[in-house]
């Protein structure tokens, strides 16, 4: 029981990312509205970013900006344990950019689809394709 509790409490951020990821995945696959699908896709991507940021977290450490860097830096020794792991943050900056770029293209395409079929619902679009 204690072990299970420790598992849940020690990693609760990881559970939240799994929940968000499943929500996003479900929305992309099941939702019929294209904009809703795009929102689901974004939630999926954000969940993964949350996962990476959780990897970087470190208890008892501060943000990865070195204090007193330029005034009297000589005697100030930097310990790695004092600062949060910066690498996942760097990777996730890139991932956010990728997400917004994908979002732009997806929205442009959905506008184009709307202009063509007059609706954003997938089932109505397929109906129109079958009729023509």
């Amino acid at each position, binding site marked *: 029981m204690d072990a299970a509790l420790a598992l849940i409490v020690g990693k*609760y*951020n990881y559970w*939240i990312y799994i*929940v*968000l990821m499943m*929500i*996003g995945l479900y*929305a992309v696959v099941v*939702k*019929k*509205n294209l*904009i*809703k699908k795009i*929102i*689901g896709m*974004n*939630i999926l991507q*954000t969940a993964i*970013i*949350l996962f990476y*940021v*959780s990897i*970087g*977290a*470190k208890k008892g*450490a*501060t*943000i*990865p*900006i070195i204090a007193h860097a330029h005034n009297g830096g000589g005697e100030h020794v930097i310990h790695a344990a004092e600062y*949060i792991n910066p690498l*996942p*943050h760097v990777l*996730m*900056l890139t991932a*956010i*950019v990728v997400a*917004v770029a994908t*979002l*732009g293209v997806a*929205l442009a395409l*959905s*506008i184009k689809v*709307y202009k063509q079929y007059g*609706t*954003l*619902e997938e089932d109505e679009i397929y109906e129109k394709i079958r009729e023509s």
Partner: protein
Amino acid sequence: MIWEFEFIILFLVVVCGIGALAVKDLLGASILFGGYSFMMCLLWAIMGAVDVAFTEASVGAGVSTVLFVAAVFRTSRRTKD
């Protein structure tokens, strides 16, 4: 780090995410998605990822929402699910 605060934000993230997908109006969904991004940004700021939080605040909660609203404005607000 105040764990109650973090817990509330984690809860709000999930609520906003589900809300954005459940609400039956695309404009509302875009705004809720903006709220989701902003909550996410707070969460990352708490975890010490200040650069990521800053980016998410300007991109996710800012520009993405505007792009969503623009796209909804150019298409329709109607949705069945």
